[in-house]
């Protein structure tokens, strides 16, 4: 287990004070903690339970229920494919399949070397630009497998096409 960058007890008490320790803000509390660690390590969830006195079974349920939360470390590069309806009918699934093939990871999984996370999102609300792919926060519109492959090559994610 790698060392956590911030001591969970400290991080948790800091975030909790932001919300005056109000456990009704659990979703936000966990989101803020995740921003620090990029995922929710077990120790952090245990610490939240300890400090809020909310039973851990409930926090664990929340952390596994909402899509915002990740209980495993994520990749350095996060590639998000919008699979909203507008993107889907314009063929975003083909781009997703291609990415899966290229990165060797299934949708919503992270590569073993923690380099890439391939994830899907319901809709980012920019349907007119679809299909949309977001790479580390940057939006790419009108994506097709061909254009995606070119982006991957440009970014050095693949060396050659075939």
């Amino acid at each position, binding site marked *: 287990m790698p060392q956590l960058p911030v001591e969970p007890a400290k991080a948790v008490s800091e975030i909790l004070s932001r919300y005056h320790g109000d456990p*009704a803000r659990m979703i936000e509390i966990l989101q803020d903690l995740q921003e620090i660690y990029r995922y929710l390590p077990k120790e952090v969830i245990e610490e939240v339970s300890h400090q809020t006195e909310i039973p851990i079974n*409930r926090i664990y349920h929340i952390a596994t229920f*909402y899509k915002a939360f990740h209980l495993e470390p994520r990749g350095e590069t996060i590639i998000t494919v919008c699979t909203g309806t507008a993107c889907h009918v314009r063929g975003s699934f083909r781009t997703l*399949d*291609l990415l899966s093939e290229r990165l060797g990871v299934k949708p919503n999984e992270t590569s073993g070397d923690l380099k890439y996370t391939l994830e899907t999102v319901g809709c980012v609300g920019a349907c*007119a630009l679809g299909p949309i792919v977001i790479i580390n926060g940057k939006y790419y519109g009108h994506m097709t*497998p061909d254009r995606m492959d070119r982006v991957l090559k440009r970014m050095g994610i693949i060396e050659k096409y*075939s």
Partner: protein
Amino acid sequence: MRSIRKKEDLLNLYENLRKEREKQGKFISVCVDTGCLATGSGAVFSALKEEIAKAGLNPEGEGVKKILRGTGSLGFDSENPVVVIYPEKIFYRKVRPGDAKYIVHKTLLNGEIIERLLYKDPETNEPIPYLDDIPFYKHQKRLLLANHGIIDPLSIEEYISIGGYQALLKALTEMEPPQIVEEVKKSKLRGRGGAGFPTGIKWEDAAKRDSDIKYVICNADEGDPGAYMDRSLLEGDPHSVVEGMIIGAYAVGASHGYIYVRREYPKALESATKAIEDAREAGLLGDNILGTGFSFDIEIARGGGAFVAGESTALMASIEGKPAEPHTKYIHATQAGLYSKPTVLNNVETWANVPIIINKGADWYGNIGTEKSKGTKIFSLVGAVKNSGLVEVPIGTTLREVIFDIGGGIASEKKFKAVQTGGPSGGVLPESLLDMPIDFDTLTKAGSMMGSGGMIIMDEHTCMVDVARYYIDFLSKESCGKCTPCREGLRQMLDILTRITQGEATMDDLDLLEELSYVVKDASLCGLGQTAPNPVLSTLKYFRDEYVAHVRDKHCPAGVCAALIEYEIIPEKCTGCLACKVRCPVGAIEGEKGEVHKIDPDKCIRCGICMEVCTFDAVRIK
């Protein structure tokens, strides 16, 4: 900004700001909402700012006397980034940062129109200089979106300068709470979040409850994967929502409000937060609003990413810091909702209608719409349509008008096939129903739903079985998993649909799928499960042939279902240029340079890159 303590403060402020604003009649608007920014409007904004400064003017302007405004979306998203020059409303499309110089010098300073940036009539190819003459806008009625383009949404002064918070003033100082409820009832406003419940009746029920504390909530979870009007409203005109909520709170006697915002919408979150802070600082939220003794405040609740969290009981559970699991509603939220207190939950767009109704009156409002559904509705017109974006039309407008008059029809030479409304809870409607007026009841009767207003246009290259499978796949993952019919029923529906798209289903499976659909609708706990089968039932109803083709002939007529299609190279057209061969990610294409290429169907992963890159149209789907 100084605090508004009483009626006169707001009236004076409005007077001053209005005059101030009028001093600068000519100004440039650039849409800077999420959708526009993704097309590079941010850079256009910066470039314009620089050019205006270079011309010796102050781009920021003073207060509301602005020359350049970053505004909410103008809706015509397929033409983004869009720049509009007021007061004439000269409409420039697909603007690049390099155009800024010309826009400032020619149009802003010299009133010259730059033809190459104009929208062209698709039929006559004639340029159309003014926004109001463009078919996309001409056929709309923009009430809720009226402020998009003319105000900077992050400034409360801008909102006040065009008459913002006047409805609140009227409500709080000239009307009693029951009168407001009566007005909203009379307006026949129906909830825009999907189910179309009459808003006034909901308010009336909450108003009559006796309770130490009551809540109002704005539902900005917008989970429909193909709709973004709520995002756009919150980003482009957040104060109209806040104003609506304060009026609603006053009408029902609530002291506390929440806006529940979907986490995928960081900009909407930001603008809603800013609007609340500014309104509080101005004295329009907090204690003793406008000196009337009425106190009310709003908090933001951030969602965690779950479609089901948009369901009313789940949303309230989520605000309480629990998993978004619905429970039965035999006791209404207006009696016992959030923290078991009387609660009014309305959608973003519903709240935004309230100031309009109070300002103009229920009678005026009643002139728009149909007998039973009044007002306008915003739709997100997306998919295979030529003009895509947000459109606002009176309820009762026909599908054809929206899709063809405003949307310009299908983007390619392909034919229109179907329109999906209501998102995952809705259905798919065929061409024969295009003349149907859009309202809550007609859509439901046709097997679809109004939903939140997603409208996805599909052409011949969309497979209806694949669409049904798409929605069920989405819903099976988004279901909370609490109740059996939804969780297990969707799992089995997905299995059957998947087998159909793979050519492995039987005709009996079709019957089972239909029966199961009815049970899931009947027996599920919440609206998610109760409407989940709609995409399946509507496609079965209107496009049964397509299901049969998959099952019986193992054929996908639209050429979409990967297991049933094969890419092939037409020997007569292939020049052996190697273009596809070098690009195939799995090396499935054989053939030397100058020789006809061939695709190995066993290696092929059906990505279609070969078809995309072939310049000789030599690749086709068998």
